[in-house]
């Protein structure tokens, strides 16, 4: 029944508070710690090729993270953020989408980008902010983006992508003229997925984005990565109540909570969420419960605020669990898998050496893309700067030699 207040018209004489914990939201898990299907669980529709692509992506990201963490410690890159512990949640959710669905990520979702095909060389060019970086060397390491792979460029301010994802998704459901038939079509071909951490859910943009998606009905999957910490702040100092999932319910959004260290469960939940969004044009919230095994970033040291016992890696590692699943299916050869690791490490080291030698972007890139074309003010400033750099070549060695 509808009414001006848009609430349920359920009359009562009882003066009773509703207890937030009464929602009692379950966490979906399909694989046990060894990667065996939990008794009674329904296996999602997943083929060998997809499963192996998920697995290889996770392995790649784990190796990349390890190497780049070390490279940062050596002073070769200025900053890095690992996906450690959340590879399963990120990779499997991306795998359940169409490759041209839009991904709007927060910053820790390099595995989704890799799943789409971002090359090792492209990762390196961004991190070393050289002239081959798609982002033209303008942002700190890990701020990837690729139009070709439908992966929106990362923005540092936290949570801003959440209402943007609602807007992007809305564009995907505006009735449009079908190119083939010439008829007006309301069919939804693509959706948007929006990743964020539980910390970002404290931002105003989270409320704005979810509320607008629910009211305006946008086909967006909000993927909350509840990994326990926002830098050093534990989740219980971030919010009260039952996780992020309970918020979804409050906004009137279909919601599900999954074990984020269980790639199969994440895959199944995202598959179902996508199908719902495409069919109804409405949003879904998925809360993934996976532990952030590493530091927030290379500027953080978790030993200062959490214990070794808490960081018990084996039970929380999504890769080992999914490997157990693949072995039990007979889809993976253990010996070959171990051999791959060494090759990966060597490839990454080699790519670091190549990328760090590539030149920085030319000085002209300082003023391009501020507007579609540089306004007169910027052209003037560039000319003045070039003249100055040219006059003092020793002070600006990376650009002076390239000024015509």
């Amino acid at each position, binding site marked *: 029944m509808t009414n001006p207040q848009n609430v349920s018209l359920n009359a009562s004489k009882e003066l009773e508070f509703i207890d937030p914990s009464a929602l009692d939201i379950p966490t979906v898990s399909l694989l046990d710690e060894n990667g065996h299907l939990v008794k009674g669980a329904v296996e999602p529709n997943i083929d060998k090729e997809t499963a192996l692509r998920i697995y290889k992506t996770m392995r790649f990201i784990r190796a990349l993270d390890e190497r780049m963490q070390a490279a940062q410690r050596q002073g070769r890159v200025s900053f890095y953020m690992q996906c450690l512990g959340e590879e399963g949640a990120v990779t499997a959710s991306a795998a359940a989408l169409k490759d041209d669905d839009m991904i709007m990520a927060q910053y820790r979702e390099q595995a989704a980008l890799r799943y789409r095909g971002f090359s090792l060389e492209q990762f390196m060019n961004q991190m070393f902010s050289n002239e081959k970086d798609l982002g033209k060397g303008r942002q700190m390491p890990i701020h990837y983006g690729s139009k070709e792979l439908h992966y929106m460029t990362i923005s540092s301010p936290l949570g801003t992508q959440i209402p943007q994802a609602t807007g*992007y998704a*809305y*564009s995907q459901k505006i009735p449009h003229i079908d190119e083939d038939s010439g008829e007006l079509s309301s069919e939804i071909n693509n959706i948007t997925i929006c990743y964020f951490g539980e910390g970002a859910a404290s931002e105003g943009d989270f409320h704005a984005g979810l509320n607008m998606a629910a009211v305006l009905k946008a086909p967006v999957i909000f993927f909350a990565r509840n990994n326990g910490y926002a830098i050093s702040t534990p989740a219980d100092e971030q919010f009260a109540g039952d996780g992020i999932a309970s918020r979804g319910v409050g906004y009137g959004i279909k919601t599900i909570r999954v074990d984020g260290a269980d790639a199969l469960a994440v895959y199944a939940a995202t598959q179902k969420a996508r199908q719902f969004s495409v069919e109804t044009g409405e949003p879904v919230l998925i809360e993934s419960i996976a532990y952030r095994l590493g530091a927030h970033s290379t500027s953080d040291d978790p030993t200062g605020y959490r214990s070794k016992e808490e960081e018990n890696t084996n039970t929380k590692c999504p890769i080992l669990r999914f490997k157990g699943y693949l072995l039990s299916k007979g889809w993976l050869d253990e010996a070959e898998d171990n051999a791959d690791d060494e090759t990966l490490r060597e490839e990454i080291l080699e790519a670091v050496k190549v990328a760090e030698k590539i030149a920085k972007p030319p000085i002209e890139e300082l003023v391009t893309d501020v507007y579609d074309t540089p306004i007169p003010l910027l052209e003037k400033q560039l000319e003045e700067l070039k003249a100055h750099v040219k006059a003092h070549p020793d002070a600006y060695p990376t650009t002076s030699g390239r000024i015509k």
Partner: protein
Amino acid sequence: MAQMNMLQAINSALDISMSEHPLACIFGEDVGYFGGVFRATSGLQEKYGKHRVFNTPLTEQGILGFANGLAAAGAPAIAEIQFADYIFPAFDQIVNESAKFRYRSGNEFNVGKLTIRTPYGGGIAGGLYHSQSPEAYFAHTPGLKLVVPRNAYQAKGLLRACIKDDNPVIFFEPKRLYRASVGDVPEDDFIIPIGKAEVVSEGSDITLLAWGAQMEIIEKAAEMAKQDGISCEVIDLRSIQPWDVETVAKSVTKTGRLIISHEAPITCGFGAEIAATIQQECFLHLESPISRVCGLDTPYPLALEKEYIPDALKVLSAIKHSVHF
């Protein structure tokens, strides 16, 4: 040509823009069936449907976040912020996101199809939260364009230019003139280019520069000065970013004097930027210091609005002071 007030001219520009692109959307608080609190979007929902002209929840940061996403997907996004005084919750989405989308992504993505419309300015007994002119905050942010029309004709041509421009643009509408400014406006499409100031009337003794609703004030001051035998050149800046240094500098080189007038508080107002640039460009041609007639460095008042406003009499005093320096 038809007689239109500024709201009708804006409505006409929006109508043309909606018919031009099948994905164009207009949204904001109360803009749907109601047509906006000032009625600028009247009749558009009936014509283009609820999917393309719609109310949003009351969330300025949400409206701009949504608009950024929509524009990034290639859909012309025309967002209304009901009063410029309420644009600040959306400040982060505008200055950190809209303004930097193209730059930070190396042009992989952009929100060039974004236009933000918002009524600004005083003179309507609106007090401190319905009278502000916040353009200077945005002028400090690279990546945004800022446009202010002075009458109905300008409003239609400039708004069309903003919507067609491939950059995020904030279009500040002088709400005091919404119904007060009536004039000939073509019913058909036309465009007034962004970034070009207009010399509204020529003169030889002093240059008067303003934009938006303040144009009416400096034009009146120029009339009053004429009685005293002072010839004023009156320029409408029209676009605050990018701004037309060349036209202003050319005029000041000729007249040797400049007065800039805006409603916003004087300190760090855009007048300060103009004064600094023009003194650099025209130093050897100046006959007197560049002066500014602006709002006080106070919140916008209610009861003493008449005293606060940089009115024609204040501009006239500044003209006389400058000419007799």
